[in-house]
């Protein structure tokens, strides 16, 4: 094919031909143009994404179209964006793999590991036969999409086992020698092995670690998404704009990072780390759209590509819905599908549902219906397979069913149960699952050391905040105030209200009547002033005056009544 024609054709479709120069394009020019027209103009695939999968330029347009139509039909079009190469696959083979994975793994795996569609069923079955005892379902599919044969995969798995490396999908990006080398480097440098390290060669990993150690920088997993020179450049660019390392900045090239910072300066918009999820062009368009629609800009607005964000916003406006941060986890069609499904099943629409794909929502609903479980928002915090594992874990531990356990992983549930058995020889109280195991143990240790009764409400807070309140009370007022309903309040609030009540000589009442602490300092002062005006005491018997218990409405009515009474007396 004439190179001049090729350059012209790619230019017409906004594809950077320079980036494709190493690819030999053998396709007929008409066929190639038909592929570009179909995918870019008709199916709105971004030229940039297309350039990342150049192999499709050598495929017959009919194969691409058949595969694309099928994937649209089964709602996998969106998942395709990062693995367009699957469109090369023989149409019958792609369908065979699709149905096999759907039946044996479930729809969520197809959405997560869409590349599997380019793998023949025979290879998946072979890997299952060889490794089903060692690998999780996700790892089996990741191993199947890797470039390694069974012999190499066996070596990789054995190396991971020998080196005590947890097998996660990224390990299949490296061969066994590289994995061993990575493990040795981490051991020598006294650094924990991070899953993102497998994105880089051992040499590159070593260079990045050296740079961090020489500059006393914490080693972030995100650094290994970029080459060593890029890591250094991005750290230098961002060090003056944020105290904390901006992990997401490593999703972009150094020049893109610079452009995004410049856009924020030009638009006088504070920089948020989520902006680095998008290209500079998208960042600018999202900022402009929010300005135009008068929407206060937040980091979650950069969760989705610009086009999807605009579509979701339009959908919300058409349907008179408030745009929420959770909606931005999904695409417009997915939001619409989830809403339709809930309407059809007469289910409330929970924000947590948007954390899942429509098929995952359906899968979780079906599982719960089949097992006679109530549908609660927390169920949608986890993926369907995690949800089912959690239910099994709870059954095994004889934990009563409660929705809060879905905030935790199965391992965390086991750990929290062990902590309660260790300290109290009982199963955990339900609210303990609001926190991670370490936090739970810290709260228990803290309360036990101060003889504080452990109640569920305490697990809504983290140990350091509880400790702040305890330390303040103990230092200034003594241990007798260390009660759950007191220490759960913010230290700063206690530091305003306690001196006030102390100055009035009524502080001791708070021990048995802590409800006064649910009013703000201003509200307490206002009610005290009113009591003074009507000559009533702050304390009646052993509790605070019932005026502190009145709702705002009833308090105002009481004040109004008193004002009227005083007015009548004056007349």
């Amino acid at each position, binding site marked *: 094919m004439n190179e001049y024609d090729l350059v012209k054709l790619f230019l017409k479709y906004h594809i950077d031909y320079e980036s494709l120069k190493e690819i030999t394009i053998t396709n007929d020019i008409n066929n190639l143009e038909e592929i570009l027209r179909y995918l870019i103009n008709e199916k709105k695939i971004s030229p940039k994404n297309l350039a990342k999968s150049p192999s499709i330029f050598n495929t017959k347009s009919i194969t691409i179209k058949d595969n694309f139509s099928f994937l649209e039909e089964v709602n996998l079009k969106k998942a395709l964006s990062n693995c367009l190469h699957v469109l090369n696959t023989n149409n019958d083979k792609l369908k065979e793999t699709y149905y096999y994975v759907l039946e044996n793994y479930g729809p969520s795996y197809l959405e997560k590991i869409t590349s599997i569609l380019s793998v023949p069923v025979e290879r998946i079955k072979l890997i299952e036969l060889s490794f089903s005892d060692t690998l999780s379902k996700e790892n089996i599919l990741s191993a199947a999409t890797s470039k390694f044969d069974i012999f190499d995969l066996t070596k990789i798995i054995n190396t991971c086992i020998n080196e005590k490396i947890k097998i996660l999908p990224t390990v299949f990006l490296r061969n066994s020698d590289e994995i061993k080398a990575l493990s040795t480097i981490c051991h020598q440098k006294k650094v924990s092995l991070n899953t993102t390290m497998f994105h880089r060669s051992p040499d590159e990993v070593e260079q990045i670690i050296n740079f961090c150690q020489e500059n006393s920088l914490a080693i972030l997993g995100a650094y290994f998404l970029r080459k060593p020179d890029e890591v250094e450049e991005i750290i230098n660019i961002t060090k003056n704009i944020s105290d904390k390392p901006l992990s997401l900045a490593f999703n972009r090239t150094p020049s893109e990072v610079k452009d995004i910072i410049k856009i924020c300066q030009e638009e006088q918009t504070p920089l948020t780390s989520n902006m680095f999820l998008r290209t500079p062009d998208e960042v600018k368009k999202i900022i402009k759209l929010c300005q135009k629609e008068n929407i206060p800009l937040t980091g979650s607005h950069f969760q989705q590509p610009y086009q999807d964000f605009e579509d979701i916003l339009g959908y919300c406006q058409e349907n008179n819905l408030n745009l929420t941060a959770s909606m931005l986890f999904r695409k417009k069609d997915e939001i619409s599908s989830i809403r339709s499904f809930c309407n059809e099943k007469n289910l409330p629409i929970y924000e947590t549902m948007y954390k899942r794909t429509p098929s995952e929502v359906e899968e979780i609903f079906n599982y719960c219906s089949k097992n006679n479980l109530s549908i609660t928002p927390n169920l949608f915090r986890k993926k369907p397979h995690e949800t089912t594992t959690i239910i099994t874990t709870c059954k095994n531990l004889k934990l009563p069913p409660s929705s809060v356990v879905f905030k935790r992983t199965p391992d965390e549930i086991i750990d929290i149960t062990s902590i309660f058995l260790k300290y109290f020889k009982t199963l955990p109280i339900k609210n303990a699952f609001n926190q991670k195991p370490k936090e739970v143990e810290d709260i228990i240790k803290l309360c036990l050391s101060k003889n504080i009764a452990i109640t569920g409400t305490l697990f*809504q807070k983290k140990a350091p*905040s509880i400790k702040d309140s305890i330390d303040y009370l103990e230092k200034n007022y003594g241990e007798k105030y260390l009660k759950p309903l007191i220490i759960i*309040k*913010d230290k700063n609030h206690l530091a305003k209200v306690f001196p006030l009540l102390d100055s009035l000589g009524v502080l001791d009442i708070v021990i048995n009547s802590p*409800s006064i602490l649910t009013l*703000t300092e201003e509200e307490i002062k206002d009610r005290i002033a009113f009591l003074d005006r009507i000559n009533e005491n702050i304390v009646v018997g052993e509790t605070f005056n019932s005026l502190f*218990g009145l709702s705002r409405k009833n308090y105002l009515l009481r004040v109004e009544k008193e004002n009227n009474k005083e007015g009548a007396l004056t007349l």
Partner: protein
Amino acid sequence: MDIDFSKINDIYGKDILYSCGENFDDLVENITILKKLGIENIYEVVERYPLLFLDDSKDFSSKINNFFLHLGTNYKEILENNMTLWEELL
């Protein structure tokens, strides 16, 4: 929804404010339950006792039913005159 979240932040601190955001679905559903039961000053109850609303709706509903049964048919009036009673549910 007209909840003054800054009050929750002032009285209970950031952890509880984040919990409200994290359990927003439960919070909304529990508010609906109280609305259906005729409680008028719900937003004030949320601001003063946010921890109550972080429970899942099934548990919340059962707690509320028992509580209102215990208070009697004039529970609305009783609670507006004595909001400290909400603390019994914590």
